[in-house]
């Protein structure tokens, strides 16, 4: 019974996030445009972009391989898996595949690898450059990510996300404990780096020296580009959803009921849109860090995560 309920919730999460992810990007861009004194293209523009890209003929290089077609689909599926597995609307675990954080990180890494291979397959200098930088950042983010996971798992005694969220819901004191705060800051920096946001990567640049994400998708077009964009947006939305549910777990459905699901869907929508606005406002005041300063930032967030784990032993 819980199995069926979990499947329903997973389906709700999937539909909600596929709809919501482009809107989130639209909101982020629109807020940023307004703050910079531009009119902006409206919050529906990303949706219009995807629709437009799907009706174009993709153009591929003669030397490229099947990777250019398969990579974008892989990225999209990995992001969809994130949306299905993470506790976004409800915390009911799917049968046999609990939302284990280690599994979730590796699902995300599949998408990272697919994107990096697409960048390489294009056979241009830009693609390779973006791919190389992207993988370097991904490699350096990994320790922070897993240590933050470790720190979060200590109060709940498990690395299963839905249980972690439920623990935080039951004992809100956990949320503002120093361990949790340090871990959340580390996790937030790691997520910014993973999703190619400022200060690690500038999502709106096409300047050759600063591109990371954009350099990899330069050679993709038509539906390939649509999948790549949608996949990246979904990843951002899902990870922001996770972050918001860890900070403010209230509203998430812990048991299955129609009302609970509606409330869960509504609150998570509000939460990620708010986080998106915050992110956008923050980005207006941030400049992109030099590529070789990024490791310092990541080392800082790693130190926070390590501090979080060791602090948990001192506190306990």
């Amino acid at each position, binding site marked *: 019974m819980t199995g069926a309920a979990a499947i329903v919730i997973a389906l709700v999460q999937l539909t909600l996030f596929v709809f919501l992810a482009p809107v989130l990007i639209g909101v982020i861009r629109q807020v940023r445009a307004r703050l910079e004194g531009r009119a902006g293209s409206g919050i529906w523009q990303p949706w219009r972009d995807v629709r437009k890209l799907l009706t174009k003929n993709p153009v591929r290089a003669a030397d490229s391989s099947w990777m250019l077609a398969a990579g974008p689909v892989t990225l999209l599926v990995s992001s969809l898996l994130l949306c299905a597995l993470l506790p976004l609307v409800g915390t009911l675990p799917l049968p046999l595949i609990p939302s284990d954080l280690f599994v979730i990180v590796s699902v995300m890494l599949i998408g990272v690898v697919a994107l990096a291979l697409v960048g390489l397959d294009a056979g241009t200098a830009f693609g390779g450059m973006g791919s190389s930088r992207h993988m370097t950042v*991904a490699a350096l983010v990994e320790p922070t990510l897993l240590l933050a996971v470790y720190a979060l798992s200590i109060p709940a005694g498990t690395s299963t996300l839905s249980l972690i969220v439920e623990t935080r819901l039951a004992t809100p004191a956990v949320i503002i404990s120093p361990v949790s705060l340090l871990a959340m800051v580390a996790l937030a920096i790691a997520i910014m780096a993973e999703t190619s946001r400022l200060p690690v990567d500038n999502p709106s640049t096409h300047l050759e020296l600063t591109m990371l994400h954009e350099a990899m998708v330069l050679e993709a077009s038509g539906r390939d580009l649509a999948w790549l964009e949608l996949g990246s947006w979904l990843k951002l939305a899902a990870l922001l959803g996770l972050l918001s549910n860890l900070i403010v777990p209230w509203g998430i459905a812990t048991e299955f009921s129609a009302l609970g699901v509606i409330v869960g869907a509504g609150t998570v929508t509000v939460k990620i849109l708010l986080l998106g606005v915050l992110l956008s406002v923050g980005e207006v005041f941030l400049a992109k860090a030099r590529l070789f300063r990024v490791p310092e930032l990541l080392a800082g967030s790693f130190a926070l995560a390590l501090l979080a784990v060791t602090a948990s032993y001192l506190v306990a």
Partner: protein
Amino acid sequence: MTALEAGLLGQLLLLVLAVAAALLTPTRWRSRVSGTVCTLLATAGVVTGAIALSGGTGSLTIPTALPLDPLVLSPDKLGGLVMIVVSAVGALAALFGIGSARVASASRTAWLSMAVFLFGMQLVPAATDVVSFLLLWEIMTLGSTALLLAHHATRGTVASALVWYSAMSQLSFFFVLAGFAMLAGLAGGTGFDLLATVDPFSWQASVAFLLLLLGFGGKAELVPLHVWVPRVLPEAPGHVAAAMSGAMVNIGVYGALLVFVRMLPNGPAWWGVLIMALGGVSALYGILQASVASNLKVLLAYSTTENMGLVFLGLGASVLLRADNATAAADAALVAALLLMLSHAAFKSTLFLGAGAVARAAGEMNLDRLGGLGSRMPWTAGAFGAAAMGAAALPVTSGFVAEWMLLQALIHGSRVDGEVVSVAASVAMPLAVAVIALTAGLALLTFVKAYGIAFLARPRSPQAEQAREVPVIMRIPLVIGALLVVGLGLLPGPLAVAIGGAVGPEFTPDVRIIGLAGVDARGIDAVLDPTTFVVLAGLLLAPVLIAVFVSARRHPTRISPLPWAGGGSRLRPRMQYTATSYAEPLVRVFDDVLRPSRDVEVTHVGESRYLVERVHVEQTVSDVVETRLYRPVLNLLQRFGILARRAQNGSIHRYLSYSFVALLSVLIVVSL
């Protein structure tokens, strides 16, 4: 005669047959006949191992003419498991050799030593006492040395690599010998069951522990005893490298298991800390060197150091947690270490075989000169890709399952029922998680680079452009290897249960099968079912694929020679990123550890300071351990050698005076 005895005897007979085949068959047929017999020999090893693992008993006694006890071969369950792993890799390597061995690697010596090497390797886990263990160990080492020597004729660099290999393998043999001697002296016998009676808290046991750790760590290519690996493996042909790096390293792990599971299972906590440190340093150092390597085989060789480092990290965690009474997590860490060993054997042998196929097709191992092989060699590319995913620990390969298990064991290790177990564990576990995470991240980059640069994009040299797919006989082991990498990842439940049975009775991991073939580690409260996971991914993939097909029918793909060209117009293959440029950011970040030497030479046009005619960049990353640790020692030795040369100047007078002094000193000593 039991089935197990028949299997052991069968291996002995097949060895004789393989030796005969190597010596007697004419050149034209040698690879086919010898390769087939070697494959059979290794398959007999798999069968024997399976019998031992499933509980078969029996022993084969070989009398010796020496004043020693007869050699008794009788693998237990753990031995059977390791025997299956090394023999399976050996079988794949021999099968690949049928197609790939040419000229030097198809000589009599080569096939003869291949058979001896395989035989020694797959029977080491059957040894029941120190003498037979060391004898078979040496047979394995000698076989592999002769196997490498067979290539001496064609390449000059082999000689120096071989000197390193012999010196390092004898060094690790010495450590193992000394360690066992220490234990045997204490126990009063050489049987493994006798050695198990030694008290692990005596100081002799600790000395023996250090010696054995160094010895077995050396065989498993751990830092700082790994220096031979990046020299030797690139010189070996693909199938030999696969057998050495995919199978022989596991014998090092088996040795360590013998010590920490069978003989001294309840050692003090500092043993665990030391093993973890050794493993952690090896893992990080190995993957860092691999990530900046441009030669495909050097990359794979260093990655072996990384994986073995992770295996030892798991073993060390198991020893430490057991000493701290966190038994459930300790058992899970042990299972994870064995899973890592299994998965490493599968993906590393496939990767080396793939490298062998690339070497044959393109005659080039430098990634900077490869590219575009994916469309030219689809089978090799597919197998290499699957194995690379395993090496990068991506779902749902065996590498992923193993690393997941290790991480779960570590995060559950520092607490039992909410209570902190010990200070050592609460510092060691987070650090170990961080090390594994960084290793995993760098492994991801390394294998994206290896696959992406070699198999995707456009060829970077004419050799790569003209590469053709290898013959069917070489594709078969490649495909089997790739299937094993994915298959083992889909069946973690049965695997973990088999491993749990093999490490008993001292260790009793509480693992069960859940779902179709998922693993349920009760002790640490963790569940993973890759099959369900694949089904879910498939369900999500279906609508996307439908959308792709609908869109593709309405808006077909256009192929253009260079559609966007990164905004440029004269895009040549040489302008693509290479393996060296791919790793450049990493070299900068880890400048202090890697210490690259870079040489930039700019030639200007005429008198102009602004127009450049040519830029020559050369970058070499040397092995810090070799330059800082081994070079000083070697230089010292060399200085002694030069000093000793002065004593030998060829003058007859001097030699006469030497004898006179010698005679005098003897007389003085006698008279005292």
